[in-house]
């Protein structure tokens, strides 16, 4: 699929170098006479340049790969002795209308310090007031992560002083969180290397907590604080240390974000700061003495360090790689790893740097919050959310593969494009094609998938347009595809029609097809006979060979057929009928 888009991209680059395409920007007509814009075109000129550019790109890629191959070889040798263990804590902003303990609006954050209640600023005398609607995204998230929901959970205080924490403590659920013992499954589809197989990453707990205020640096000694975000509901997802490669770590974070987005629990992603990941990394020798550190039942681990401030999936992978290499270097040189907090910055890639050592270690002095009642969740409520849970990406993938017959790649593309709206468009088109009596969608699924992903996708890429559902109305799309399936449009004319629709025509497809004379009008027998006779007249030598029925007869017959196809109207010829006519004349 990607390769086809790649090709079309080169057609547009080729445009710069050749004058052989239609001068109009959006017109990709390469027919001998561009119907719309009168510039002659020779398709043969475009192909060699395209091939040239592709070959050049391929050569440079091979060069890069062979350069790093040497370094990779050494690194891979070393990694064979060491096992990497990673555990990740994800903080995600919940998609809810109010904050966790105050009725201030969590939606509007444009004007600084305008969506506040006194409790968000810890004004003396203000009290927390638990807002039940935060449980909607929280429970959906926990259920989608396959957790057990505790009917009773409690809130605790985590104490530390910082200017973005007005109360001097954060309200969280350290001792008794509301959800425990979840699971996330990772497969190759999610980005794992083939040798890792399928991974099941355990989730220790999911807990509700408060967000801090937002700080921005004004100058060297001043920071500006916006308390709009203070008190916003977050959910912290703590995984067990069961990830063993940087790719798996990045895949895990990506998977969790996609699950949260699918169930409408978190709608801002990592790039916008709505989801933050803190990564814990440790290494140990495969064959050496097992480490004496353990976490939540996973034993034998080495000393871990924590990396904070990771703001994208790629940085998760890079940071884990860099930290693993750093730890292996230290341990191989005979040193000891210190349990510390490190940071990762894009401006200084390739290495983590220490943020806080043992002496700066914070003791959070966790204590149950006496002002907040325990949280009691009804079992029926949990059952309701379980039964009405929106489908997670894995379920949608399965549905697309089984009910619609799409390949895994195509299904994945449909899910990821345009925030899921392309998928809905696709389903709309298929449902318009499928007669209501027949629920068999696989008949049309692949076909429509080709049109929407590949044909339409190619047009979008080459014109660099953003897709939206009103670009080509679903009815127009389904009409076009149905005409093509019925045989009233040949492949090329269907593509032409697509380009017309893409340019903005809103009339019904049948009207346009008639107007542009794209409909396939089959030639009648008389026309076939005339054409066959003409070709026979022009090539008497070949006719003789065919009529003698010698060894080359078949080949020459094909040649004559080819001549017929060339001289006839391509839009109207049917190869089989032409051949039948020819045979009947030459070999009665």
């Amino acid at each position, binding site marked *: 699929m990607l390769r086809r888009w790649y090709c079309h991209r080169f057609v547009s680059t080729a445009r710069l170098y050749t004058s052989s395409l239609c001068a109009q920007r959006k017109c990709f007509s390469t027919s001998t006479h561009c119907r719309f814009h009168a510039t002659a075109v020779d398709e043969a000129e475009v192909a060699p340049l395209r091939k040239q550019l592709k070959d050049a790109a391929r050569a440079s890629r091979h060069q890069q790969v062979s350069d790093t191959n040497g370094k990779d070889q050494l690194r891979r040798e070393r990694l064979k002795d060491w096992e990497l263990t990673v555990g990740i804590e994800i903080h995600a902003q919940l998609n809810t*209308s109010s904050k966790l303990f105050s009725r201030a609006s969590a939606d509007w954050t444009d004007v600084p*310090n305008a969506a*506040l209640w006194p409790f968000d600023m810890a004004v003396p005398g203000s009290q927390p007031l638990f807002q039940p609607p935060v449980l909607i995204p929280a429970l959906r998230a926990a259920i989608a992560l396959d957790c057990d929901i505790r009917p009773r959970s409690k809130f605790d205080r985590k104490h530390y*002083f910082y*200017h973005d924490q007005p109360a001097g403590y954060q309200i969280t659920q350290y001792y008794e969180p509301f959800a425990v013992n979840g699971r996330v499954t990772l497969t190759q589809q999610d980005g794992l290397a083939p040798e890792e197989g399928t991974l099941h990453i355990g989730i220790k707990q999911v807990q509700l907590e408060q967000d801090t205020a937002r700080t921005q640096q004004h100058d060297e000694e*001043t920071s500006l604080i916006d308390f709009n975000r203070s008190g916003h509901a977050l959910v912290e997802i703590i995984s067990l240390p069961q990830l063993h490669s940087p790719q798996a770590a990045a895949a895990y974070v990506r998977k969790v974000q996609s699950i949260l987005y699918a169930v409408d629990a978190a709608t801002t992603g990592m790039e916008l700061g709505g989801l933050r990941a803190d990564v814990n990394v440790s290494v140990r020798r495969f064959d050496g003495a097992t480490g004496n550190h353990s976490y939540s039942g996973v034993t034998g681990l080495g000393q871990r360090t924590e990396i904070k401030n990771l703001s994208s999936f790629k940085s998760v992978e890079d940071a884990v790689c860099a930290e693993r290499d750093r730890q292996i270097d230290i341990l191989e040189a005979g040193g000891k790893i210190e349990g510390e907090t490190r940071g990762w910055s894009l401006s200084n890639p390739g290495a983590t740097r220490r943020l806080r050592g043992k002496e700066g270690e*914070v003791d959070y002095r966790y204590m149950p919050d006496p002002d907040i009642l325990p949280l*009691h969740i009804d079992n029926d409520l949990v059952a309701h959310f379980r039964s009405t849970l929106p*489908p997670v990406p894995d379920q949608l993938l399965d549905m697309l593969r089984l009910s619609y017959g799409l390949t895994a790649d195509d299904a994945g593309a449909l899910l990821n494009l345009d925030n899921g709206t392309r998928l809905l468009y696709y389903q709309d088109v298929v449902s318009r094609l499928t007669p209501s009596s027949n629920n068999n969608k696989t008949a049309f699924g692949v076909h429509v998938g080709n049109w929407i992903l590949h044909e339409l996708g190619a047009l979008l890429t080459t014109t660099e347009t953003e897709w939206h559902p009103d670009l080509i109305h679903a009815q127009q799309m389904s009409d076009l595809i149905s005409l093509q399936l019925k045989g009233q449009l040949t492949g090329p004319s269907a593509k032409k029609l697509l380009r017309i629709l893409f340019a903005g025509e809103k009339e019904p497809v049948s009207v346009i097809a008639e107007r542009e004379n794209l409909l396939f009008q089959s030639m009648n027998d008389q026309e076939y006979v005339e054409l066959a006779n003409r070709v026979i007249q022009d090539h008497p030598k070949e006719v003789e060979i065919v009529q003698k029925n010698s060894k080359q007869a078949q080949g020459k017959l094909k040649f004559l057929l080819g001549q017929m196809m060339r001289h006839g109207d391509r839009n109207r010829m049917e190869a089989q009928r032409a051949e039948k006519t020819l045979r009947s004349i030459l070999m009665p």
Partner: protein
Amino acid sequence: MDRVPIRRVIFGTGYRGPDIKTGRIQPSSRIESMLSRPSWSVRSMLPHDEEDKQASVTKEQLHHLLKLSALPQPRSQEEEDGMLKTLESQIHFVKEVQKVNTTGVEPLVALRDETAESFREQTVTLDTLKPFLDQEEKVGNNGTIRRRKPTEMITHSGWDPFELGDGKETRKMGKYFFVKKGKDKDNAPPVLPP
């Protein structure tokens, strides 16, 4: 008529009532012997001088604790010694309290209504959340749900976060609160958030 004192007899204690002559109450000998010797004194929770002088808190730990609590470091050796001595006695006190056997006792967090009735009232049910679930809409036919976000801002009625006393303008920088980095390194809070 002369007043005659009534002798009351309280069973079991041998109490004979107030003494006729002096009017003083004479408690029973059993009570007297029980009360003659104290069984416990709050002094037992204070450190005795003869105990081991091994410090439970080192200087470094003291400084660390002060940093955690965002309190200033001691300004002189006497102040530091005073703080350490106070801490010692406080730790001794706590150790004495910890000698009580509390196995199986759930720590008390707050005095609350913990009856089944109140738990039922506090439980978040489907009814509690129904008005908020009505604010969601279905998208497509796969079961996807999206919350409808409000188009207008819902403001809290008239609470100005800057209006917290005199000198409102000094607390603002445009629409923001602001904080300046302290120049005193010892007393400055940690530079980076935990």
